[in-house]
């Protein structure tokens, strides 16, 4: 049981998610089952094998440093739940 109440709180904090009381028990059960299953990877020897993040070699992609029009402020704010004329609005973060 890797996923106990403490762990659920901890990863909830990392992920900015708070589960309802009625979601919590089943989430714990399901996640423990899934993580137990993920532990089957322990059967395979990976010593000396380099971790592969992309299936094909990826290189840095460069482009010329040219001035081009960028996304307009109006477009960026188009979908904001709360905004002023020129910015996203969020609750006060310090006094």
């Amino acid at each position: 049981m890797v996923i106990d109440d403490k762990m659920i709180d901890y990863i909830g904090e990392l992920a900015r998610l708070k589960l309802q009381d009625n979601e919590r028990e089943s989430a714990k059960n399901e996640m423990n089952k899934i993580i137990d299953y993920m532990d089957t990877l322990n059967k395979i020897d990976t010593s000396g094998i380099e971790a592969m993040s992309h299936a094909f070699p990826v290189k840095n992609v460069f482009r010329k440093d040219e001035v081009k029009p960028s996304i307009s402020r109006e477009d960026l704010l188009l979908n904001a739940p709360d905004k002023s004329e020129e910015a996203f609005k969020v609750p006060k973060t310090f006094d």
Partner: protein
Amino acid sequence: MDLSTLTALEAGKLIKNKEISVAEITKAALDNIEKTDKNYNAFVTVCHDEALKQAEEVQKKIDDGTLTSPLAGVPMAVKDNMCTKGILTTASSKILTGFKPFYNATAVERLEKAGGVLLGKLNMDEFAMGSTTETSYYGPTFNPWGENRVPGGSSGGSAVAVATDQAYYTLGSDTGGSIRQPCSFCGITGIKPTYGAVSRYGLLAYASSLDQIGPMGKTVEDVAEVLSIISGHDPKDSTSFNQEAIKFNLENNVKGKRIGIPVEYFGKGLDADVKARVLEAAKKLESMGAVIEEFNMPELEYAIPTYYIVACAEASSNLSRYDGVKYGYCTPKFDDLSDLYYKSRSEGFGMEVKRRIMIGAFVLSSGYYDAYYKKALQVKAIIKNSFDKAFEKYDAILSPTAPTTALKMGENLSDPLKMYLGDIYTVSVNLAGLPSMVVPCGFDSNGLPVGLQLTGKAFSENTLMNIAYSYQQETDFHLKKPVLKKEMEV
């Protein structure tokens, strides 16, 4: 004439020959959606007025000779995780309530430039996380082949829109089988292209190293034509390969093609009817001149845990952008900024999405990173390597697409691990970045479709399409249609 049953290329030909106008065929498609979609719920959004307007514009460009694509004027629809300018884009999640992007995904842009008419946006599992299209905030999509059957997922809407003749072709996305498995469940044709063949710009990310957009349609020819439009380098996606759009040269000839069958894929857990249909397809290809051989790929056993570790890890990072501030759903009541984040996300995401984000946060967290995430990336290298070895011997790998045919609604929803295990034949392909396509190869004893999966080495789309095309020339499974439930006409 019932226009809806035409293939995309047949419809394009009628338009080109002026036997029908783009407005007429678009209007007919919209009427058909209105009649049928209450029963299937394939669409989240139908772009009625926009489509009719677009039809007029496309017609002008066809008439003046600017639009020459064989698919110019043909109505289509795309999965709701691709950005469409000014049109609601939800990824079937509450958290994207009201989100209207100000730009098009590159794949959508390219279709529109070629004269595709967008009928609407298609239902899916929330953020493409699921294999049944039941986790959508907008309700499940229904499979037309059986009462109360799931269409597969996550591109369930994209599959049903084609299977019910609502759209001539659709776009789906495939992170672990999300194009292929619904194709199999709904009896249609589709391809997950090589990673990097189609731009991901404007695709709402689930797991960026695995996600790939691909076409779904009625025939191999249709799917090949669409892929030749949407593929090719895009400077807006740094993982898109620096090469031209893929061109296809289809001919009915599989003589001497070497096709491998991994024996591990035909063992425990595979439905007897599915097994029989897929092996019959292998026999068919053999009778047409292909060389079929069994081989071993024991590493495939590790594909599912590896996939879920990698995909959840990337999802936990990608979905951190949904914070209730920039777009979409924001909780109405909150104490401070932190509370706004917690509540918007906890209320906006469905349970399966929350579960995957939390598993992702866990496997990336300090103390567990090496045991899970790093380990998974190492196993990914082993899986990739075993595919490389297989493709030294074979032109394609033949397998089932899913262990079963379409499941009953609700069957796997309460047991996520059981649902994950259903991805056994599809996820390894995404880990290795390979192209893989599905064609219908028969039906089970309940009359539900079975799909044959053909996987090739990177950028072997032309080889796969040729094998699949040859198979469709000699079989008629792809021409079979479900009996549709239409609303009574008043």
